[in-house]
């Protein structure tokens, strides 16, 4: 892993104040992510991993420390850090096409003609295999298809970093596997920098270059970072018996369930 720092977290901490009580969710998070790298953040519920993603996304402001993207401080939301939300967050009154188009129209208003924006939207929809459903509304398509559109919308912003907040958490196992393959394929083709929140060990090992393991909250921080030394392209079937895959999987499970097992109260 010899890449220059692209996205970096420096001493990021986050506290929420409710009345007189202050809850520290994150403390001293230091992480550097290289361009084109696929990094997963894994941890038990309540470890602040979504908070971390929202800080990068600019939806939350960290209490201490800063996040830098290409050397510039992140302090507000923006299309350079597109988010794939867990619950897809499609606008129900717009079609599949319209949901992607609204983002493209805003982001490329000055830099692309209307015809070019249309082609751009269609290209992203084709990338996630949703072009033939362009005129359907969100309530007419399945959960997996909605998430495909959510991915297309995020990719259409041509983000520097693609942020995915448990993108497949609400999907059934087969659909999830399908979408994971799609994401691997897209990552291989476009070379995006991706930061993904997950609580699925297999998903993290399959997709990531590095896996960031979070300790339990409150005051959660990075416990360990595991480099997944698996060559790409990765094939789900071949990995089942791969030694490196099994080692990574065991390492993450060991971290999550032996050394940082979920506190009893939250289980």
């Amino acid at each position, binding site marked *: 892993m010899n890449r220059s720092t692209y996205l970096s977290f420096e001493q990021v901490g986050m506290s929420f104040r409710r009345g007189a009580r202050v809850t520290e969710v994150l403390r001293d998070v230091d992480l550097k992510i290289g361009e084109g790298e696929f990094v997963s953040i894994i941890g038990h519920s309540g470890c602040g991993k979504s908070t971390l993603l929202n800080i990068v996304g600019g939806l939350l402001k960290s209490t201490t420390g800063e996040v830098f993207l290409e050397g510039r401080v992140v302090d507000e*939301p923006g299309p350079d850090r597109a988010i794939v939300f867990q619950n897809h967050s499609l*606008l129900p*009154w717009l079609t599949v096409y319209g949901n992607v188009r609204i983002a493209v129209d*805003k982001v490329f208003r000055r830099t692309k003609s209307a015809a070019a924006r249309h082609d751009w939207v269609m290209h992203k929809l084709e990338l996630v295999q949703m072009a033939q459903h362009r005129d359907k509304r969100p309530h007419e398509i399945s959960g997996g298809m909605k998430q495909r559109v959510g991915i297309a919308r995020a990719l259409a912003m041509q983000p520097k970093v693609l942020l995915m907040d448990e993108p497949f958490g609400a999907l059934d196992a087969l659909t999830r596997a399908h979408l994971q393959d799609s994401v691997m394929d897209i990552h291989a083709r476009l070379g995006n920098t991706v930061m993904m929140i997950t609580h699925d*060990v297999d998903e993290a090992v399959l997709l990531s270059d590095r896996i960031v393991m979070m300790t339990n909250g409150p005051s959660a921080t990075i416990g360990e970072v595991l480099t997944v030394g698996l060559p790409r392209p990765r*094939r789900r079937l071949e*990995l089942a018996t791969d030694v490196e895959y099994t080692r990574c999987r065991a390492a993450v499970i060991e971290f999550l369930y032996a050394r940082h097992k979920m506190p009893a109260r939250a289980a």
Partner: protein
Amino acid sequence: MPSAVKAVKPPVDSDAPPAPAAVLALPLKRPPLAERLALIISEAARRAVPPVVMLAVLIALWELLCSQAGSRLPPPSKVLADTWDFIVDPFYDNGGIDKGAFWHIANSLGRVAIGFALAAVAGIALGVLVGQSTWAMRGLDPIFQVLRTIPPLAWLPLSLAGFRDAQPSAIFVIFITSIWPVIINTSVGVRNIPQDYRNVAAVIRLSWYEFFWKITLPATVPYIFTGLRIGVGLSWLAIVAAEMLIGGVGIGFFIWDAWNSSRISDIIVALVYIGLVGFLLDRLIAALGHVISHGTSAS
């Protein structure tokens, strides 16, 4: 017990990737035309028969009760006989207020249209304001909650004093009656815009103006139309009462005039018309909401 936790989480990696299955296109079998037609007719009959039967039963009961000697209200047969000319010729115009049913209803609807349109525009604008600004909500909501309980007719003397003319006073009564549900429902809709939509808007950096047109309004449409439906019903209730007091051409004063001339049958026919028009107004707003919200608003 880490080992137990491990045990309940079987490895997913043994899952084979879903192989692309061959898709066989089955020819869609459409039933023959006659069969589909029969299906539609039987479905329509299933829906139409119960209300028709109930209506017949109720009319028969009414006929029975009012046919006895000394009955104060006319039976349906007498109503029909008395008002037949009025029913079959709704367009006659003998000058003054001696006009056909169409003109009375059209006049009332005209007043409702103006008053309700003003209430819709002002109500949506105020509702958005109250929904978006906590300060405006705290300041205005208690005032609205008190004002909305004032009965429509209680406003009439005040508006007559202000406008010194019957027509704008009636329109004002419609306006003030129907605006409250529009304001309240719109503001609830604005306050209930899901955080998800706000996050999406933040990521693509919609301006305040774009957020209003592309998120706030479409997300609030189902709520707005709920308010509009209640509002149009209330304004139809209010216009009949207001017209009884202000006089002139209109279905409300028609009823009052009929009572003063002891034309009880005319009153009954007018009531039926008012009910039907009110029902149609409600369906109209509901259908409009259904179309505008792309089916997300219940009709």
